[in-house]
């Protein structure tokens, strides 16, 4: 009886796994199948699951027309700058919060953490105004700067630093090393894993950020991929093979990053949500 019910659960599990996996893979596979067709086939009343004529034409046209390459470049530059700056200021702040004694430490940390409660979305109007006054609309600095405030990252690093035995720091301090030096040559090397994980997650989040670039960028040349892809109807018209090619090209960099660093990405997202992987 018992073993029969276990077999039953396994069968249900296999069916559920196959159905869900198929449903979750289908949209991307369908996009690929569409992107590999000649444009005429996408609007033909004859329905086929696979292209009748296989062609890379849509990819070639997408790359040649419009601004896709420029948007990819912008996204890459913005995500890289956001990641490097966020890591630098968050590591320094987390080290101070975790290892140094100074007046107002818990108050400042508390205020920074309270900001979890306030969604970024509520700040759009004054942020836009500030950027307007600084003359940073349609600039890389304007896109990057508000994204480098990441209390979550500081929280994760502080948790990690808190667990490193104090002897490490004391030994280095005895040798007369200043805090920046201790952070750089003692703490950073043993924090490699978590720093990489948070860096990759920050990169992906910055690459995918839609809302802020949407507010701060109006010029087509300064758009990042998530924003640019919403302009593709203007660039390519309603040509679904090309639209799907654009979508897949825009998805490629982050998809590859995920496949290459699956473990780290997983670890990073878990750490950012307050859970350990």
């Amino acid at each position, binding site marked *: 009886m018992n073993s029969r019910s276990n077999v039953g659960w396994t069968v249900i599990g296999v069916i559920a796994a196959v159905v869900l996996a198929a449903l979750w893979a289908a949209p991307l596979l369908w996009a690929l199948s569409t992107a590999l067709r000649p444009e005429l086939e996408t609007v033909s009343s004859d329905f086929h699951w696979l292209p009748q004529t296989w062609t890379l034409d849509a990819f070639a046209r997408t790359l040649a027309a419009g601004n896709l390459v420029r948007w990819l470049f912008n996204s890459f530059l913005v995500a890289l700058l956001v990641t490097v700056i966020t890591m630098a200021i968050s590591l320094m702040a987390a080290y101070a919060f975790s290892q140094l004694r100074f007046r107002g430490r818990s108050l400042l940390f508390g205020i920074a953490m309270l900001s979890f409660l306030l*969604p970024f979305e509520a700040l759009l109007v004054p942020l836009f105004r500030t950027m307007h006054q600084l003359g940073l609309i349609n600039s890389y600095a304007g896109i990057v700067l508000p994204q480098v405030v990441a209390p979550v990252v500081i929280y994760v690093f502080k948790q990690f630093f808190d667990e490193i035995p104090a002897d490490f720091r004391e030994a280095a301090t005895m040798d007369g090393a200043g805090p920046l030096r201790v952070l750089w040559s003692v703490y950073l090397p043993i924090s490699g894993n978590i720093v990489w994980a948070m860096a990759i997650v920050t990169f992906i989040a910055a690459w995918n950020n839609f809302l802020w670039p949407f507010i701060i960028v109006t010029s087509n040349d300064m758009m990042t991929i998530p924003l640019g892809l919403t302009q593709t109807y203007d660039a390519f018209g309603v040509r679904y093979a090309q639209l799907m090619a654009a979508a897949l090209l825009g998805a490629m960099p982050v998809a590859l990053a995920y496949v290459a660093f699956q473990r780290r990405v997983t670890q990073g997202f878990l750490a950012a949500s307050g859970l350990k992987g």
Partner: protein
Amino acid sequence: MRPNDLVLGSARREGLPATVLLAPFVFAFLLFFLVPAGITFWMSLTESSLTRTNAFVGLANYHTLLNDPSFWDSVLNTFYFALLTVVPLTVLGLVMALLVNRFARVQGWLQGVFFLPFVLPISVMTLIADWMLQPSSGVINHILGGQRPWLADPYWALPAVAIGTVWWTVGFNMLLFLAGLRNIPADLYEAAALDGARGFTLFRNITWPALRPVATTALILQIIASLKVFGQTYILTSGGPFNTTRVTLHYMYETAFTQSDAGYAAAIAMAFVTIVILLSVLQAGIVRWLARRDV
């Protein structure tokens, strides 16, 4: 020397390095977070355009807000979207995690398939959804028959966006549950199996109690994320048809950036923040109440 002097002494010695290390963060935090947060509140008490403040009007914006049917419609649309997404995202996330955990041989593949959409830009999801839901040559209508214009249909537009959102973001919840599952010691199951427990009994008595804190985290994060919906509806439907998909953040965006009524938009933002915080607190309370009753 009293022990306190030691602490104060080191505080004095480490105050300067701490200032140096914290300066970049504090500067960015003030400029791009704390000050804008203060300005949002101040602006909500003024009559302002996008670039200049004209007059202090006290609570007038809030008075308008309470009597503005467009605002309340947008709140209802947001709640409806949350209703359509929170439960499926949490339940499916749990089911996916159980499946990934159960089938060890294909774990990497299965997890990859479920999680990949989450790392893609929002507009990749919307482009594909728009193509699949296309009335005449979309694959959904081919499978179901008919020519329903899903995204232009007042009844179907928001559920369609919700389904796209579930596909796009469920991987994150799966990840949370998976982490929870992996923290359950295997010997708990072995001991229970020796006692003859199987299948659902194991889930009810071991898996679910261990996962409850994770489920709480997932639910809170999910409700907040769903309330903050904007991109999906903005890109796929522009708030239409007949404003049936215009959510609160969309209404705030239009008020600020299309109508250039920044003071009123700030009041909408304040109301939005209040709603988000109230709901999080309320939900935390409900979860605690349920936990006490051991559900």
